[in-house]
């Protein structure tokens, strides 16, 4: 009896999870694996269009003979690169209409015109002309004829499904001189974005954890950058930072803090002179990182605040009795309590910043030294149009991601053991 119940339970469970598993498999897992397939192929964006046989139907009346009509089909192969084999043609006609003569490719049977048009090479064009007559010697209505659309079918080779593979994409990725630069930009962006967001998150959480007027409102406000759509925020920032008409530059010039406008998003390097040493700061990248911190510190704030509120008050009271000062309290009580949250946060944010695409894409489009790996996927795949290369870069991202996840779950497992 119990084994039967267990069986029913099992079957129900599979039934309940099946739809989700199927969907996630086909839209997330399958594409990740097909990345591997595509990355070993030489595919370009223009190859993705499946070649189609196309026909345009023109209806022309014949002079002085309203019972007859001429129909011209303008046939063509839509693809400029591939041939279509075994093209079949089908069109429907109203009753009482018949072709006067037909070539041997076509047949007319019970109002249906069927043709076998053979193989079409690339860029192929042909006109098919047929004259029809009304069997009852009545006038033919052009409108009715036009209302039917011809249907064509044909086979073509799908470049994605062939078994031709190449290693060129990966060779190009690794041999590319910019690859090291690409990696260092990505890590620079990821690391400083993550650290900055966490530091500001701790500061904000410390503040909001105290009682003051308007505290709940403050908590909502702090989350605004995180919940608002990235498109709106990125374009607002772009307008604020614009070198000629941007508010920030105009304000700084107005207060005579700077002499001329600074192109914060369009300038790759700026030389800073600190204590006699010249530092080369990557300006556009720094600006993008600041945007990143501005947008994502609320998340760190939320996590850390939740943890801070769970810290027992007695600890602080005991510290007060011992005469500890605020810095000691922070270092010896608060920090150890939130360290676990911070490490998890760091890993998660690191993974997500590593894959961040929208923010940089919208702010700079990857120009002036802000090209990271995800931006490169887009540029290779869609700007240059080399789908295979784009996929190869995606694979590089996935490999890094797997390494990070391994570390993350190792850490998580260790944490679970400790508790």
């Amino acid at each position, binding site marked *: 009896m119990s084994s039967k119940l267990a069986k029913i*339970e*099992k079957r129900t*469970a*599979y039934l*309940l*999870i099946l*739809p*989700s*598993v199927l969907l996630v498999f086909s*839209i*997330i897992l399958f*594409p*990740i694996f097909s*990345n591997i397939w595509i990355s070993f192929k030489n595919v370009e964006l223009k190859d*993705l*269009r499946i070649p189609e046989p196309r026909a345009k139907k023109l209806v022309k009346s014949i002079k002085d003979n309203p019972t007859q009509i001429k129909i011209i089909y303008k046939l063509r192969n839509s693809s400029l690169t591939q041939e279509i084999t075994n093209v079949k043609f089908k069109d429907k006609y109203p009753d009482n209409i018949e072709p006067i003569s037909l070539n041997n490719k076509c047949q007319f049977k019970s109002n249906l015109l069927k043709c076998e048009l053979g193989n079409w090479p690339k860029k192929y064009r042909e006109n098919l002309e047929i004259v029809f007559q009304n069997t009852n010697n009545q006038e033919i209505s052009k409108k009715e004829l036009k209302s039917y659309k011809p249907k064509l079918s044909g086979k073509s080779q*799908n470049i*994605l499904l062939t078994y031709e593979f190449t290693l060129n994409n990966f060779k190009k990725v690794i041999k590319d001189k910019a690859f090291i630069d690409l990696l260092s930009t990505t890590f620079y962006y990821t690391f400083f974005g993550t650290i900055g967001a966490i530091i500001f998150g701790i500061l*904000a959480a410390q*503040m909001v954890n105290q009682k*003051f007027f308007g505290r*709940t409102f*403050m908590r*909502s406000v702090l*989350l*605004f*950058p995180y*919940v*608002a*759509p990235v*498109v*709106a925020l990125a374009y*607002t920032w772009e*307008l604020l930072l614009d070198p000629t*008409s941007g*508010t920030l530059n*105009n*304000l700084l010039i*107005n207060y*005579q803090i700077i002499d001329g406008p600074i192109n914060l998003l369009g300038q790759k390097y700026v030389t800073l002179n600190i204590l006699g040493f010249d530092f080369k700061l990557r300006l556009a990248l720094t600006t993008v990182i600041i945007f990143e911190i*501005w947008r994502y510190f609320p*998340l760190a704030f*939320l996590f850390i605040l*939740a943890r801070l509120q769970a810290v027992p008050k007695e600890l602080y009271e005991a510290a007060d009795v011992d005469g500890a*000062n605020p810095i000691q309290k922070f270092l010896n009580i608060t920090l150890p309590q939130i360290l676990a949250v911070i490490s998890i946060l760091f890993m998660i944010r690191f993974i*997500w910043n590593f*894959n961040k*695409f*929208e923010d940089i894409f*919208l702010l700079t489009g990857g120009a002036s030294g802000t090209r990271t790996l*995800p931006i490169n*996927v*887009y540029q290779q*795949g869609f700007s240059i149009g080399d*789908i295979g290369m*784009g*996929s190869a870069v*995606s694979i590089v*991202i*996935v490999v890094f991601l797997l390494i990070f996840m391994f570390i993350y779950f190792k850490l998580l497992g260790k944490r679970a053991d400790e508790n």
Partner: protein
Amino acid sequence: MKIKNIFTYCFISSLFLFSLICIWKILVTLQGIEITNFNFNKLFIFGIILCAINLLIGKKLNLNIKIILLALLFSIFDYFISTNLPIWYSFGIFLISLFFFNNIKDYDKNFLSKNHSSQKLFFNFLTLFGITLFSFVILFPFYMMLVTSFKTQALLLLNPLDFSINFAQGLPELFKSYFIVFKDYNFGRYMLTSTIVSLGTVIITLIFAIPAAYAVARLNFFGKNFLSTSILIIYLFPAIVLVIPLYTIFSQLGLRNSIEGLLIVYTATTLPVAIYMLQGYFKSIPKELEEAGIIDGQNWLGIIFKIILPLSLPAISSVALYVFMIAWNEFLFSLMFLDRPNTFTLSRAIQFLNVGAETPRQYLMAGSVVVTLPILIIFVYFEKYLVSGLTAGSVKG
């Protein structure tokens, strides 16, 4: 009383006051009023003097009279060193200094002679300072977005720092950018698409996720542990590695430029987090309730609908709001999959506006307000649910 403490107190206080004044001056400048100098030296030194006076008076005077007196002194001083400024500017200065002196009114000689008083002082100011600065930095872009949408290109070229809203021109003229964005740029249609896509994603995700989450939380089956860990792993895979294969597959299936295609992708990408969040909650529902249901002769479906669902409404609403937010804000897939304007979502439409040649910035900002406002209203209104959703699911972003 240590000299060091007095010095830190005066220095930090005056610096804080000065930064408050700076923020106020920036806001006033953006109303088109000409202020070209922060007057750092004079204001800072005068601030130090006033703070010292505050310390000297201590509690000898009624505290309310003391702060009003000090604030008045400060505003009058500011009025004399700056010229040709409207009276509301000085009134603002007065209110700010009132707020400031109200905060330092309790400090006197006794406080400063206590242990760690300079550190405490520092932290108190850091909090105040932080709250003001953080709110300013966060709200400033939103504020600029809003006020830019009320200006015109010509006015902005004339004075790029004048963002004052002229109410005298009448409402139709004021909201002109919004009318144009909706009329000429078809934003009504995009808004409808965005709403349909987001709501559709929420509904389909819930239909898929609730049974799956229930199975993972409650039922025993082979591969359960594997499934629950893979949910988290799958969730960590970013959209950018899916984009190329999905693009190729969708273009061959003819699913690009269709709402259906977008719905499928959004649902699949939000499903793992929805299942992850829901199963956690389902596990917290006492098992006895379900057992009672089984005794009453309910089948699995009955248990889900009659017992689990009513009990987990808060969790379901936070999942729904979170998924809605993700779908509404989503940009990458809509950029990839939509290139015909009649299928655009709001985010994609705004990007199209920006790329399109020479769209005046007030239209761009009006569009941005249109896409931002609904989500902020929803967020503020359902803050409790959304925050719990964010904390549970915010591994993504």
